[in-house]
């Protein structure tokens, strides 16, 4: 079977899913697709340049916070807000990429981690803009240009996320199959040889990191507008670790693998945390998120156990 046929079948199933699933499952599905997109963006770095980033949460957080600020403060239409958030992430990524690509291997991982944690720290420094540990809550989804409102409902938002994921996948696929992608493969397999062949590998690496941040920022922006709030946990290193695991589990260097890895992980965590309190990371990230949101609304802090199982309250 050719990949086009596979692609069409998969796309058709994805388009029809909202009509087959209950609302709660659709929420998880949207979250899963967003994380799939996020994992795919990291795969550009890990799978094609062997640049193990341990700070990819920076891209996610940057996208989420930019979108949150643009949508909340300026009330600009959602699509424009998301595009602007991606641009902000890309622009911020340029100096980060320039510094990080000075080193490779473990140092690279640690430099990216440093930038992500720096971003985490900065959220508390500029409390009046970012809301500090409370984050930004009540992010609206303002209606789009030409009076578009189809993405304000959950089903519509699902299609928006699906469209972004499919578009990003096709774009990334084109990138890694282009001559540019061939150089990336050269860097992965043997960087010294690629340099000897006359390619500027540093520039290629910078471009890849910036691209990966852009797609990661898109995932973050989609998430912020979906969840309705952005919290500092989005920048925390556990997010970076989680997405790196998704890439490795899904199969790095395949693009589609990390997407499946991300989707699989989100579903698995939801299922496991319904059975037991076993999804430690979810409790960490989402639990704190719930408490923060609750605290913001004036609710008292809940005991830890209800935090673990309190996911259903969002619906």
């Amino acid at each position, binding site marked *: 079977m050719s990949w086009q046929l596979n692609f069409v079948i998969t796309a058709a199933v994805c388009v029809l899913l909202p009509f087959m699933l209950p609302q709660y499952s659709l929420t998880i599905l949207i979250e899963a697709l967003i994380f799939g997109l996020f994992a795919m963006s990291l795969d550009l770095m890990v799978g094609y340049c062997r640049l193990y980033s341990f700070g990819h949460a920076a891209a996610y957080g940057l996208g989420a916070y930019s979108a949150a600020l643009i949508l909340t403060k300026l009330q600009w239409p959602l699509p424009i807000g998301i595009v602007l958030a991606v641009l902000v992430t890309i622009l911020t990524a340029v100096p980060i990429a320039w510094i990080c690509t000075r080193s*490779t291997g473990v140092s690279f991982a640690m430099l990216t981690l*440093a930038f992500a944690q720096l971003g985490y720290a900065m959220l508390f420094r500029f409390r009046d803009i970012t809301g500090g540990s409370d984050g930004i809550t009540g992010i609206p989804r303002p209606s789009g240009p030409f009076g578009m409102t189809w993405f304000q409902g959950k089903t519509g938002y699902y299609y928006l996320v699906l469209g972004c994921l499919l578009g990003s996948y096709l774009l990334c696929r084109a990138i890694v199959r282009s001559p540019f992608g061939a150089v990336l493969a050269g860097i992965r397999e043997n960087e010294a040889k690629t340099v000897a062949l006359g390619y500027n590998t540093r520039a290629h690496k910078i471009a890849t990191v910036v691209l990966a941040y852009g797609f990661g920022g898109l995932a973050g922006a989609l998430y912020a507008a979906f969840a309705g709030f952005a919290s500092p946990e989005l920048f925390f290193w556990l997010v970076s670790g989680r997405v790196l695991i998704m890439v490795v589990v899904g199969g790095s260097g395949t693009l589609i693998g990390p997407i499946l890895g991300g989707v699989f992980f989100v579903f698995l965590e939801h299922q496991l945390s319904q059975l037991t309190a076993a999804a430690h990371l979810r409790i960490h990230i989402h639990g704190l998120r719930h408490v923060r949101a609750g605290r913001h609304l004036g609710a008292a802090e809940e005991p830890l156990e209800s935090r673990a199982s309190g996911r259903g309250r969002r619906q």
Partner: protein
Amino acid sequence: MSLLGFIVAQCLSALSQAAILFFIACGLTLIFGIMRIINFAHGAIFMLGAYVGFTAIAVTGSFLLSLVIAPIVVGAVGMAFERIFLRPLYGRRDGGAYLLLTFGLTVVLSEIVRVIWGAQPLASGIPDFLRGIVIVFDQPFPLYRLFLIALGFAFAIAVWQFLDRTRAGLLIRAVSQNAEMVHALGTDVDLVRTGVFGLGCAMAALGGVLAAPLVTAFLGMGTTVVIDAFVIVIIGGMGSFLGSLIGSILVAFVQVLGAYYFQDLALAFMYFLMLIVLVIRPGGLLGKED
């Protein structure tokens, strides 16, 4: 309040912080030096140490005894983990496998701790004979923190002497320089690796027991500390023992002074320090460039 007294108190406070950080960072850098892997589970090991220490105090009633028991127990857990899970991966070149495994161990250990000890924080409190205040230059200073400084100092000297003077230390340094050559000379390199992994875990556990009276033992106590330890190891140079000592002191001073003078930027300072060091010397202060 005299200025001198204030400065001394701040420095002592930073040094006691450095002692705790050093216990974790030293093990982390030893493990990296030998195996070239970043042990993401080190924070969870630190936490496990604190909880095992809590139980050891509850059972034996002695804080000093728990300082011996917890490292032994956790060190044994570390050795078993290395033997069963890490050793089959040594032939593989990709870093992803180690990452996945040690990150997974973090999650598993947290869950095990939750199942055994529950989700509530456990406060063991400072042992009676270390409770109290010492007056240093007119400034009151907790005796326990002085105890930490002394212990950290003794520990640093002990590890240094161990690495420099004993045959086991010689083997560890040799394996970190050229494992294949050591293997060719007839030493069981796998055994050295198991031993060092256990030793590194034992050190982190010791740090956990010592930190527990200050911060109480709770489930997330490893997640921030392990990042501090990464920063230290990176600043000092991966695999360098002296580097981890210098890094611990630097980071502790930045944390304590930052928290006092620039509360909002305290978190950021540490990462600024790391960025500056890495941009100037990509391999860390005392490390080799990779």
